[in-house]
């Protein structure tokens, strides 16, 4: 079939799913709604596979695209609703549709006894459709439409159980912070249009001038800065990350899909898509790198002190995203994409795992009330174990290859810096610690499960996706084995991903000698061993002698309180930004609105009423006066005409 038809089916399947479920939102039949939604996601996955297959093989074509209609044509500026799959978006589309389908499958089981299942699946499908728009859009405007769409769906899904006001507030918070980010993204689009006169990715990349913009206020820097602000909003980086942990209020599959695999990576994807532009703004790259590293470390430390299973995973996501931005900041866009993919697999796996745990524990999310669940949930425990190993970065698993690639690029890239590498390693250490802590408290150790709860294994529809994701977490890393490692492994597997992205992602000009392979192996060894040590420490803390954490915490009470309360960032925002804003507007209202605006409107209405009463005296019923007015009128008009 021709590309256009394929693209159409790819895009329209989730939309039709959304409409079908949306129109039947009152029905309680979860299985019907679920199957329809999953089938829709599956169809779009198949189409994306077929389309991506066209990029391989002998008739390989760099990009597959389809143009549907002329969206906007205003003078020189014309935007067509066209979609394209090139090497970068191929990865993204496969990840999004693949993981999306699995999560849809998982949700059938998870949402089976919810009272509004078809509404949930409708939102899910709508999210998928918007995500596809964002990924496949051939110009920034379509991306922006998708960008807003996913923001909307995340709001709808977070606040799905809106009856609970706290969950609804979380939805609002997510949506508002996203909107702030989107504003930056929009300004970025404007500056790009101002700069290049077009919003189409190919044309932008074509028109990027080779000379880097070293100033802080140059147009390219400003554009990249604004785009980065947009990215931080969407991908929860330092200033605008506060919404992600609260977004856990939504159903777990939602957290898995949106707040782990797909939506939050949109910011990274956008930066990688425009990497030639960002390379021209070294200052912005430094900023990205620093913020990325800082987020990674900060989020990781907060993760250490959380007791809610989903909160821990949320902070781990924030820190992993920090890693991806760190990679972008140092110019290793390929590594960022690679980590994005692997992270999607194991993070989705762990979220779904936590989902099935919560499902088993009838909604209990506090890990202090869990423990020794491996006996009751064997499959979940096995898959969770694989995910844990992958995220810590143990060699054969996906996490190791992508994270080490980032650390290596942070160390050697011209934009990289030793401190950035150090931050990355610290982050890795903390990640290892809190992930092991999580594994220990939920699955190993003695069971703290209350009697009323007797956990049971989740049904096959939930466990199958877990198994598939576990396999992917293992296999995912092998497509990007670094050269240094490849050389010593039997069969010398080359770095396929680097070769795949070579055409599209530009490597920063590597000045100075090509770093030696041994240095890379050495650094790899350092990070892996440190991670392993912290994992053992955590195991010791929480399994062998459970009371050690308490003693350790009592020693560093002040620091622990600080970290436990998430560095008081939320409180800071309220105190310094939100409340002053509200007070200022109240003041403005009291002073300006009441005095000036109301007064003027009343003045106008009084004038009109005055004139009205003046005119009223004309209609007093005296017929002869009317005759007089007519005569007067005639006289005046005659006078005017004949003058």
């Amino acid at each position, binding site marked *: 079939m021709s590309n256009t038809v394929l693209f159409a089916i790819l895009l329209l399947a989730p939309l039709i799913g959304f409409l079908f479920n949306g129109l039947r939102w009152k029905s309680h039949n979860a299985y019907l709604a679920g199957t329809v939604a999953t089938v829709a996601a599956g169809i779009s996955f198949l189409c994306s596979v077929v389309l991506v297959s066209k990029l391989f093989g002998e008739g390989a074509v760099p990009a597959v695209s389809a143009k549907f209609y002329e969206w906007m044509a205003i003078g020189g500026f014309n935007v067509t609703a066209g979609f394209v799959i090139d090497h970068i978006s191929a990865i993204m589309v496969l990840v999004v549709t693949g993981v999306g389908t699995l999560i849809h499958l998982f949700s059938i089981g998870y949402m089976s006894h919810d009272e509004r299942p078809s509404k949930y699946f409708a939102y899910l499908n709508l999210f998928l459709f918007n995500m596809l728009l964002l990924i496949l859009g051939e110009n920034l405007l379509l991306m922006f439409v998708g960008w807003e769409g996913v923001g909307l769906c995340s709001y709808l899904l977070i606040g799905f159980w809106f009856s609970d006001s706290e969950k609804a507030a979380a939805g609002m918070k997510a949506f508002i912070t996203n909107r702030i980010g989107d504003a930056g993204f929009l300004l970025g689009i404007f500056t790009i249009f101002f700069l290049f006169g077009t919003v189409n990715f190919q044309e932008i990349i074509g028109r990027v001038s080779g000379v880097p913009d070293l100033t802080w206020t140059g147009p390219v820097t400003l554009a990249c800065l604004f785009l980065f602000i947009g990215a931080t909003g969407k991908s929860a980086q330092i200033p605008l990350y506060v919404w992600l942990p609260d977004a856990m209020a939504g159903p777990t599959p939602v957290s898995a899909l949106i707040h782990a695999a797909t939506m939050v990576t949109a910011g990274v994807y956008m930066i990688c898509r425009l990497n030639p532009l960002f390379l021209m703004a070294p200052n912005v790259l430094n900023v990205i790198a620093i913020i990325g590293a800082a987020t990674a470390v900060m989020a990781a430390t907060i993760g250490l002190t959380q007791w809610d299973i989903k909160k821990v995973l949320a902070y781990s996501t924030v820190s992993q995203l920090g890693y991806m931005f760190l990679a972008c900041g140092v110019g290793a866009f390929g590594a960022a994409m690679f980590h994005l993919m692997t992270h999607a697999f194991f993070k989705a796996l762990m979220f779904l795992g936590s989902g099935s745990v919560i499902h088993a524990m009838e909604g209990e999310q506090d890990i202090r009330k869990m423990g020794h669940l491996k006996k009751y949930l064997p499959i979940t425990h096995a898959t969770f174990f694989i995910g844990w190993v992958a995220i810590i970065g143990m060699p054969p698993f996906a996490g190791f290859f992508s994270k080490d690639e980032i650390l290596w690029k942070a160390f050697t890239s011209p934009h990289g810096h030793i401190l950035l590498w150090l931050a990355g390693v610290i982050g890795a250490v903390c990640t290892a610690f809190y992930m092991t802590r999580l594994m220990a408290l939920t699955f190993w150790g003695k069971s703290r499960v209350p009697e009323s709860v007797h956990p049971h294994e989740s049904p096959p529809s939930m466990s199958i996706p877990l198994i598939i994701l576990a396999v992917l977490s293992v296999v995912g890393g092998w497509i990007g084995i670094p050269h240094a490692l490849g050389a010593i492994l039997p069969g010398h597997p080359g770095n396929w991903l680097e070769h795949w992205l070579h055409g599209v992602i530009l490597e920063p000009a590597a000045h100075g000698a090509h770093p030696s392979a041994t240095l890379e192996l050495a650094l790899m060894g350092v990070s892996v061993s440190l991670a392993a040590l912290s994992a053992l420490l955590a195991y010791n803390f929480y399994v062998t002698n459970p009371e050690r954490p308490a003693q350790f915490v009592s020693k560093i009470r002040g620091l622990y309180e600080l970290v436990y309360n998430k560095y008081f960032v939320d409180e800071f925002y309220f105190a310094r930004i939100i409340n002053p804003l509200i007070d200022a507007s109240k003041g403005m209202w009291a002073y300006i609105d009441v005095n000036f605006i109301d007064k003027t409107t009343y003045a106008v209405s009084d004038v009109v009423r005055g004139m009205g009463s003046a005119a009223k005296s004309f209609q007093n019923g005296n017929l002869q006066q009317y005759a007089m007015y007519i*005569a*007067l009128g*005639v*006289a005046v008009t005659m006078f005017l005409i*004949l003058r």
Partner: protein
Amino acid sequence: MLTSTDFLFYVLAFISVFFGAAVVIARNPIYSAMSLVITMISVAFLFGALDAWFLAGVQLIVYAGAVTVLFVMVLMLFDLKHEMKTFSKGLLGNGVKLIASGVTLGMLLVYIWSTYATEPTFKPLPPAATSSIKATKDLATSLFTDYIFAFEAIGALLLIIAVGAVTLSRITGGTHHADS
């Protein structure tokens, strides 16, 4: 030289203006009705002076013979003693009304003078083109060819007015309680 027609016009014009003013100024409404009759008759003769003989006849029959009779009859119906007292001459003092009508009159006369008086073509009264019977026949044919719709509309109007007038007069509270 002053021909008979000109003399005729001036006599009739004087009569109609004089008795027209009488209609407005007369204290007793009956006198104004009578002067209205005389004005109607003089206007009828004016039509004659303009060779519109059929119209003169119709004017005499309709206006002089029917409408003003109705006026006189209705005036006789009211007891005029009360009317006399409410004579509104006092209101004549109302300056604005006079000024307005004065200005209009002035404007009209100036306008007519500026457009027609200086026009030589309209000066002498052209001789009557056709005999008065022929003229009446032209009038009739045009009435029935060009204005047939208006003619039917007038028929309908008269029917409606007849029905309306009767129902209006039927409203209770007749002049004499006996025959209301």
